[in-house]
């Protein structure tokens, strides 16, 4: 077990190293120069060249790469070109909204999707099953920016129940900040509940057809117990996988929703950083997201051990 985790951690570092190398190359291949952007439309080429020199962007790419890797190994991801702050600090500030947003939306997705998925599988072919599948398809097909705009317009602007956007001003406390996350969480929760619902239903259907379920029933076990104790426990592994993946996707991919609701999270940061060509921030964010992705995958695999005693590593 310890050996397994150790091996996975080594693998994780290799993945992250590859990601950071690719990130480094790709952002520098993209045309567009941070210095020109920072100085504004009327700045001259000479001004931009001087700023590039000050930022160290005129050094050979290999020198920039080696210094970046050398510093990254020591936990120093450099300084944001735009914020004049260490990248680690910039990223730390952005991770809180994203993590809470991901957790909230995952919670919403689970609360909606698992019971309906289980029930739909149990009553396969019934009206509710059909309705659940159709709704799930609809929910998955509607773009999240549209749902976001609608919720924003009707629940926030017209009814005034929620803030339209942002993450609170200087005098907002933790609870108030969380309130800002409710609408975007619902948007992401709806989208992701569709996926989880379909997985739960499919996984439950497989298990409900197994011999031991028939045996349990023939022994006179109550339906509720059969479904919730026997079937659900065994159907859980694929569900955990998809929940893990969903969470990882949420952390890395809430870009549109963060943009629409103007949440200063990682997704929003990455988009702005790309538009600003803030190389160190793009690299740093990719490293953090890649690490989270790999870490969540590892945790998902470890969770299998808890759920199913037959799994051994």
């Amino acid at each position, binding site marked *: 077990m310890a050996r397994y985790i150790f091996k996975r951690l080594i693998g994780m570092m290799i993945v992250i190293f590859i990601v950071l190398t690719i990130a480094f190359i790709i952002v520098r291949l993209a045309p567009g120069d941070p210095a020109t*952007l920072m100085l*504004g439309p009327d700045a001259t080429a000479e001004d931009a060249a001087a700023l590039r020199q000050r930022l160290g962007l005129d050094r050979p790419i290999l020198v920039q790469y080696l210094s970046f890797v050398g510093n990254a190994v020591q936990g120093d991801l450099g300084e944001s070109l735009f914020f004049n702050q260490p990248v680690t600090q910039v990223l730390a500030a952005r991770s809180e909204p994203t993590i809470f947003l991901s957790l909230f939306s995952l919670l919403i997705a689970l609360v909606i999707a698992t019971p309906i998925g289980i029930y739909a599988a149990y009553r396969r072919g019934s009206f509710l099953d059909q309705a659940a599948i159709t709704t799930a398809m609809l929910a998955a097909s509607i773009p999240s920016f549209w749902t976001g705009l609608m919720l924003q317009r009707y629940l926030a602007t017209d009814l005034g129940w929620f803030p339209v*956007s942002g993450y609170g001003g200087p005098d907002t406390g933790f609870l108030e900040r969380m309130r800002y996350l409710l609408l975007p969480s619902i948007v992401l929760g709806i989208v992701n509940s569709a996926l989880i619902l379909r997985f739960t239903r499919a996984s439950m259907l497989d298990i409900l057809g197994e011999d031991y379920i028939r045996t349990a029933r023939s022994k006179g076990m109550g339906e509720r117990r059969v479904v919730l104790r026997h079937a659900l426990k065994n159907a859980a592994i694929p569900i955990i996988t998809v929940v893990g993946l969903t969470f990882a996707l949420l952390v890395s991919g809430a870009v549109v929703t963060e943009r629409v609701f103007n949440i200063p999270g990682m997704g929003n940061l990455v988009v702005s950083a790309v538009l600003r060509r803030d190389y160190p921030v793009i690299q740093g964010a990719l490293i953090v997201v890649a690490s989270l992705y790999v870490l969540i995958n590892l945790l998902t695999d470890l969770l299998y051990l808890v759920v199913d005693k037959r799994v051994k590593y």
Partner: protein
Amino acid sequence: MESRLLTRASLLAAFMAGPAMAAPLAAQTTLDVAIIGEADTFDPMMSTKDVVSIVTQHFVETLYTFDSGWNVAPLLATEMPQISDDGLTYTIGIREGVTFHDGSSMDAKDVVASLERWLEVASRGKLVADKVASIEATGDYEVTITLTEAYSPLLSLLAFSNSAAAIYPEETIAETIDPVIGTGPYKIAEHVPDQYLQLVRYDDYSSRSEEPDGAAGARNQIVDEIRFVPVPDPNTRVEGLLSGQFDFADGLPAESYDRLDSSDVADPMLLQPFGWPVFAINHKEGLLTDKTTRQALQAALPMDDMLFAAFGDDKFFLTDGPLYPEGWAWRNDAGAELFNQNDQARAAELLQEAGYDGTPLRILTSRQYEFHFKMAEVARMALEAAGFTVQMDVVDWATLGERRNDPALWDIYISHSPFLPEPSLTDMYSKTSRLGWSNPEKDEILAEFTSETDPEKRKELYAQLQGQVFEDVGFIKIGAFNALSGMAEGLTGVTETPWPFFWNAESAE
């Protein structure tokens, strides 16, 4: 159990109700202003971006500023300078009793150090740097600028909030200034990048005493706090304004006009005209170095259609040729008959005369500003009808910003600008700009224009310069467009300007 439930219920209620449940602050007035993005720097010398100007003018000041008629007016200077008859010496009195936000008082030494830095690092400062012989403190509260040749745009440059000649304490002057300390009516309290910039009233502010007039005159600090919130998505700015979350929102999409107009929470604020879209022309290399080809280009363009495609409703644009709008001192009609010819047959003749060989005309544009792209699309059709082969290079703004510096990569790039108070603030007239527009006649007019100090003569010279823009097709103005902002009902005292400011603003909340 019951009490736990109750606690939970009340927590939930507090959570849902949010600020409504919070104890009211003691009559603290705050203005929440949604801006289009984060200001990259708080040092306005270092940037020509409008968003930087908008934000920084609240805490950093300059010697001069502009009144509502875009005339230069004193701000940190006591009055307008004494200019020697030969136009070479500017003696500027500095106001006494002005303190910086760190408590230190401002004197001539701070001004000299700041202006020297401005000449060295600011794009617009560099425009005059080679004409400045010296900047000296000629008294505790007097500064003398000596020029090597007369340069009439100097005062406008000193007054502009963009690439601004900001006045900082001498001790803070360095390559980068951090934190930024100014003399403005508000000072920085907290900045959380991409979330908000909180400005609070500077209690020791020393205001001018004249009636407020544009950015000139008294700067009254009516609200206690101004919070600038970067909101990149335009729809989110609209919703935020309509929900009451913001008191002012800048850069709103034209389509939101009717919603704002019919709302009882907010009102539209149409700045007409705001500015002009421009097709910048490459005079250094390629197809358009040929004058007849440029004239063919100018003849073919249908400005009405381009503007309509770009702005959708004539509430938001004006098909207007002269380079300055109605009501401005610089307005004149020279050459304007060549505007909006929409004559593809004439263009085809000119192309034939030029011996055009079908080399693609490369239009560099971006979709960051959707109206640029839409104008380019309509232009393409007209140009193709005239016989041009057109190649559209649609890139993001960052890429455009870089590519336009290389004359080998484009023939036209599309940009836009607010109407600037002084023509020389637009560098497109200058042969050293990235357009590289130069001919002996124009260069001579420009040299005379920038050294002439008599306002009437300057107007005449400017008319000649505008004539050159059309005659030689230096660059192409497409028209004028309006900008939409919005403000909460009950907000008063906000001047209509491309760079809105909120001293003197009063909220009815």
